Protein backbone atom coordinates (compact mmCIF):
# COMPACT_ATOMS: atom_id res chain seq x y z
CA UNK A 1 0.00 0.00 0.00
CA UNK A 2 1.41 3.49 -0.80
CA UNK A 3 0.43 4.80 2.66
CA UNK A 4 3.14 4.06 5.23
CA UNK A 5 2.39 4.15 8.95
CA UNK A 6 5.30 5.61 10.92
CA UNK A 7 3.80 4.90 14.31
CA UNK A 8 6.86 2.97 15.50
CA UNK A 9 9.13 5.94 14.62
CA UNK A 10 6.99 8.37 16.62
CA UNK A 11 6.76 5.91 19.53
CA UNK A 12 10.55 5.61 19.55
CA UNK A 13 10.92 9.42 19.47
CA UNK A 14 8.57 9.77 22.46
CA UNK A 15 10.12 6.69 24.14
CA UNK A 16 6.71 5.11 24.54
CA UNK A 17 5.98 1.39 24.52
CA UNK A 18 3.05 -0.23 22.69
CA UNK A 19 1.45 -1.21 26.01
CA UNK A 20 1.63 2.35 27.31
CA UNK A 21 0.18 3.79 24.09
CA UNK A 22 -2.54 1.16 24.10
CA UNK A 23 -3.61 2.19 27.60
CA UNK A 24 -3.49 5.92 26.83
CA UNK A 25 -5.43 5.85 23.55
CA UNK A 26 -7.82 3.15 24.75
CA UNK A 27 -7.13 0.77 21.86
CA UNK A 28 -6.47 -2.96 22.09
CA UNK A 29 -2.92 -4.18 21.62
CA UNK A 30 -3.95 -6.26 18.62
CA UNK A 31 -5.53 -3.23 16.89
CA UNK A 32 -2.44 -1.11 17.56
CA UNK A 33 -0.28 -3.91 16.26
CA UNK A 34 -2.39 -4.06 13.05
CA UNK A 35 -1.84 -0.30 12.63
CA UNK A 36 1.88 -0.46 13.43
CA UNK A 37 2.61 -3.30 11.02
CA UNK A 38 0.72 -1.56 8.19
CA UNK A 39 -1.97 -4.26 7.92
CA UNK A 40 -4.80 -1.81 8.67
CA UNK A 41 -7.16 -1.01 5.80
CA UNK A 42 -8.60 2.13 7.39
CA UNK A 43 -8.14 4.40 10.41
CA UNK A 44 -10.89 6.30 12.17
CA UNK A 45 -10.43 10.06 12.73
CA UNK A 46 -11.14 9.47 16.43
CA UNK A 47 -8.25 6.96 16.63
CA UNK A 48 -5.91 9.30 14.74
CA UNK A 49 -6.91 12.18 17.00
CA UNK A 50 -6.23 10.11 20.14
CA UNK A 51 -2.81 8.95 18.89
CA UNK A 52 -1.80 12.49 17.86
CA UNK A 53 -2.92 13.81 21.27
CA UNK A 54 -0.94 11.19 23.22
CA UNK A 55 2.20 11.35 21.03
CA UNK A 56 1.94 15.15 20.69
CA UNK A 57 2.36 15.12 16.92
CA UNK A 58 0.58 15.84 13.62
CA UNK A 59 -1.21 13.19 11.46
CA UNK A 60 1.52 13.69 8.84
CA UNK A 61 4.09 12.49 11.39
CA UNK A 62 2.29 9.15 11.56
CA UNK A 63 1.07 8.72 7.97
CA UNK A 64 3.24 9.09 4.91
CA UNK A 65 2.48 8.74 1.20
CA UNK A 66 5.01 7.13 -1.12
CA UNK A 67 4.62 6.28 -4.80
CA UNK A 68 4.18 2.57 -5.42
CA UNK A 69 7.10 1.00 -7.30
CA UNK A 70 5.74 -1.10 -10.20
Amino acid at each position, binding site marked *: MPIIVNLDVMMAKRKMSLNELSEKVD*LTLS*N*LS*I*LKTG*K*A*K*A*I*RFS*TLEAICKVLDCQPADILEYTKEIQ
Partner: protein
Amino acid sequence: MKIKTETILTVSKYLALLGGVGCSILWGSQLVTLIASFINPEWVKHTYQVDLNLYGIREHSIGFYVCAMILTISVSVLKALFWYKIFELLSELKLQTPFSREVVIKLERMAFIMFSVWMISSIFWKTYTFYLTQATGIQLPIRNTDDEYLFMAGIIYIISQIFKRGIELQEENQLTV
Protein backbone atom coordinates in the same frame (compact mmCIF):
# COMPACT_ATOMS: atom_id res chain seq x y z
CA MET B 1 -36.71 -12.06 15.61
CA LYS B 2 -33.33 -13.80 15.95
CA ILE B 3 -34.95 -16.98 17.25
CA LYS B 4 -37.47 -16.86 14.39
CA THR B 5 -34.69 -16.66 11.75
CA GLU B 6 -32.80 -19.51 13.41
CA THR B 7 -35.98 -21.61 13.47
CA ILE B 8 -36.56 -20.95 9.77
CA LEU B 9 -32.93 -21.92 9.06
CA THR B 10 -33.26 -25.18 11.02
CA VAL B 11 -36.57 -26.09 9.34
CA SER B 12 -35.10 -25.28 5.88
CA LYS B 13 -32.03 -27.39 6.69
CA TYR B 14 -34.12 -30.49 7.41
CA LEU B 15 -36.39 -29.84 4.42
CA ALA B 16 -33.26 -29.76 2.23
CA LEU B 17 -32.13 -33.05 3.77
CA LEU B 18 -35.57 -34.50 3.00
CA GLY B 19 -35.26 -33.28 -0.60
CA GLY B 20 -31.82 -34.92 -0.84
CA VAL B 21 -33.14 -38.23 0.50
CA GLY B 22 -36.09 -38.06 -1.94
CA CYS B 23 -33.82 -37.46 -4.93
CA SER B 24 -31.47 -40.23 -3.74
CA ILE B 25 -34.40 -42.65 -3.66
CA LEU B 26 -35.28 -41.50 -7.18
CA TRP B 27 -31.84 -42.09 -8.72
CA GLY B 28 -31.37 -45.28 -6.69
CA SER B 29 -34.59 -46.78 -8.02
CA GLN B 30 -33.74 -45.71 -11.57
CA LEU B 31 -30.32 -47.35 -11.26
CA VAL B 32 -31.87 -50.55 -9.91
CA THR B 33 -34.35 -50.56 -12.83
CA LEU B 34 -31.47 -50.11 -15.29
CA ILE B 35 -29.53 -53.05 -13.81
CA ALA B 36 -32.66 -55.21 -13.48
CA SER B 37 -33.66 -54.51 -17.10
CA PHE B 38 -30.60 -56.44 -18.29
CA ILE B 39 -32.07 -59.57 -16.65
CA ASN B 40 -35.73 -58.88 -17.42
CA PRO B 41 -36.57 -56.18 -20.05
CA GLU B 42 -40.14 -55.98 -18.69
CA TRP B 43 -38.74 -54.03 -15.70
CA VAL B 44 -38.22 -51.03 -17.99
CA LYS B 45 -41.98 -50.39 -17.88
CA HIS B 46 -41.72 -49.78 -14.11
CA THR B 47 -39.01 -47.07 -14.27
CA TYR B 48 -39.76 -44.64 -11.44
CA GLN B 49 -40.91 -41.11 -12.48
CA VAL B 50 -39.88 -41.38 -16.13
CA ASP B 51 -42.80 -40.87 -18.53
CA LEU B 52 -40.94 -41.84 -21.68
CA ASN B 53 -41.37 -44.76 -24.06
CA LEU B 54 -38.27 -46.43 -22.62
CA TYR B 55 -39.54 -49.93 -23.33
CA GLY B 56 -39.81 -49.10 -27.05
CA ILE B 57 -36.22 -47.79 -27.05
CA ARG B 58 -35.01 -50.85 -25.09
CA GLU B 59 -36.66 -53.15 -27.62
CA HIS B 60 -35.09 -51.26 -30.50
CA SER B 61 -31.56 -50.72 -29.21
CA ILE B 62 -29.98 -51.40 -25.82
CA GLY B 63 -27.30 -48.75 -26.47
CA PHE B 64 -29.86 -45.95 -26.85
CA TYR B 65 -31.75 -47.23 -23.80
CA VAL B 66 -28.60 -47.21 -21.62
CA CYS B 67 -27.74 -43.74 -22.90
CA ALA B 68 -31.25 -42.43 -22.02
CA MET B 69 -31.02 -43.99 -18.56
CA ILE B 70 -27.52 -42.59 -17.94
CA LEU B 71 -28.75 -39.08 -18.81
CA THR B 72 -31.86 -39.48 -16.61
CA ILE B 73 -29.88 -40.92 -13.67
CA SER B 74 -27.16 -38.27 -13.87
CA VAL B 75 -29.80 -35.51 -13.67
CA SER B 76 -31.35 -37.20 -10.62
CA VAL B 77 -27.90 -37.65 -8.98
CA LEU B 78 -27.04 -33.97 -9.54
CA LYS B 79 -30.41 -32.90 -8.11
CA ALA B 80 -29.74 -35.03 -4.99
CA LEU B 81 -26.24 -33.55 -4.72
CA PHE B 82 -27.73 -30.06 -4.96
CA TRP B 83 -30.10 -30.75 -2.05
CA TYR B 84 -27.23 -32.12 0.07
CA LYS B 85 -25.18 -29.01 -0.73
CA ILE B 86 -28.09 -26.84 0.50
CA PHE B 87 -28.20 -28.94 3.68
CA GLU B 88 -24.43 -28.51 4.18
CA LEU B 89 -24.65 -24.78 3.50
CA LEU B 90 -27.49 -24.26 5.97
CA SER B 91 -25.64 -26.36 8.57
CA GLU B 92 -22.48 -24.26 8.33
CA LEU B 93 -24.13 -20.85 8.00
CA LYS B 94 -23.60 -18.69 11.10
CA LEU B 95 -25.91 -15.72 11.43
CA GLN B 96 -23.31 -13.73 13.41
CA THR B 97 -20.67 -13.99 10.65
CA PRO B 98 -22.52 -15.10 7.50
CA PHE B 99 -19.77 -14.14 5.07
CA SER B 100 -17.12 -16.84 4.89
CA ARG B 101 -15.00 -18.38 2.13
CA GLU B 102 -16.58 -21.83 2.74
CA VAL B 103 -20.06 -20.42 2.01
CA VAL B 104 -18.81 -18.79 -1.21
CA ILE B 105 -17.18 -22.06 -2.37
CA LYS B 106 -20.38 -23.98 -1.59
CA LEU B 107 -22.54 -21.44 -3.45
CA GLU B 108 -20.25 -21.57 -6.49
CA ARG B 109 -20.40 -25.39 -6.48
CA MET B 110 -24.20 -25.25 -6.23
CA ALA B 111 -24.31 -22.90 -9.24
CA PHE B 112 -22.07 -25.31 -11.15
CA ILE B 113 -24.31 -28.28 -10.24
CA MET B 114 -27.39 -26.41 -11.46
CA PHE B 115 -25.57 -25.48 -14.67
CA SER B 116 -24.62 -29.15 -15.15
CA VAL B 117 -28.27 -30.20 -14.67
CA TRP B 118 -29.27 -27.72 -17.36
CA MET B 119 -26.44 -28.90 -19.65
CA ILE B 120 -27.44 -32.56 -19.36
CA SER B 121 -31.21 -32.17 -19.44
CA SER B 122 -31.24 -29.55 -22.16
CA ILE B 123 -28.25 -29.71 -24.53
CA PHE B 124 -27.25 -33.39 -24.12
CA TRP B 125 -30.89 -34.54 -24.11
CA LYS B 126 -31.73 -32.59 -27.28
CA THR B 127 -28.65 -34.05 -29.03
CA TYR B 128 -29.61 -37.52 -27.85
CA THR B 129 -33.23 -37.25 -29.06
CA PHE B 130 -31.99 -35.90 -32.41
CA TYR B 131 -29.72 -38.93 -32.95
CA LEU B 132 -32.40 -41.28 -31.62
CA THR B 133 -34.94 -39.99 -34.15
CA GLN B 134 -32.34 -40.16 -36.93
CA ALA B 135 -31.33 -43.74 -36.09
CA THR B 136 -34.55 -45.39 -34.96
CA GLY B 137 -37.42 -43.10 -35.92
CA ILE B 138 -38.63 -42.99 -32.28
CA GLN B 139 -39.56 -39.47 -31.24
CA LEU B 140 -39.20 -38.41 -27.61
CA PRO B 141 -40.73 -35.23 -26.19
CA ILE B 142 -38.18 -32.40 -25.76
CA ARG B 143 -38.08 -31.16 -22.18
CA ASN B 144 -38.34 -27.38 -22.12
CA THR B 145 -39.04 -27.22 -18.40
CA ASP B 146 -35.37 -27.64 -17.47
CA ASP B 147 -34.37 -24.14 -18.63
CA GLU B 148 -35.22 -22.89 -15.13
CA TYR B 149 -32.04 -24.59 -13.88
CA LEU B 150 -29.91 -22.26 -15.99
CA PHE B 151 -31.72 -19.28 -14.48
CA MET B 152 -31.26 -20.76 -10.99
CA ALA B 153 -27.53 -21.34 -11.64
CA GLY B 154 -27.18 -17.69 -12.67
CA ILE B 155 -29.01 -16.43 -9.56
CA ILE B 156 -26.91 -18.63 -7.22
CA TYR B 157 -23.70 -17.48 -8.93
CA ILE B 158 -24.72 -13.83 -8.45
CA ILE B 159 -25.44 -14.54 -4.75
CA SER B 160 -21.98 -16.15 -4.41
CA GLN B 161 -20.40 -13.00 -5.87
CA ILE B 162 -22.39 -10.84 -3.41
CA PHE B 163 -21.07 -13.06 -0.58
CA LYS B 164 -17.53 -12.59 -1.96
CA ARG B 165 -17.97 -8.81 -1.73
CA GLY B 166 -19.42 -9.32 1.76
CA ILE B 167 -16.21 -11.08 2.85
CA GLU B 168 -14.15 -8.13 1.58
CA LEU B 169 -16.34 -5.67 3.51
CA GLN B 170 -16.22 -7.86 6.63
CA GLU B 171 -12.40 -8.03 6.44
CA GLU B 172 -12.18 -4.28 5.83
CA ASN B 173 -14.34 -3.68 8.87
CA GLN B 174 -12.18 -5.98 10.98
CA LEU B 175 -9.00 -4.19 9.82
CA THR B 176 -10.31 -0.70 10.63
CA VAL B 177 -8.71 0.66 13.79
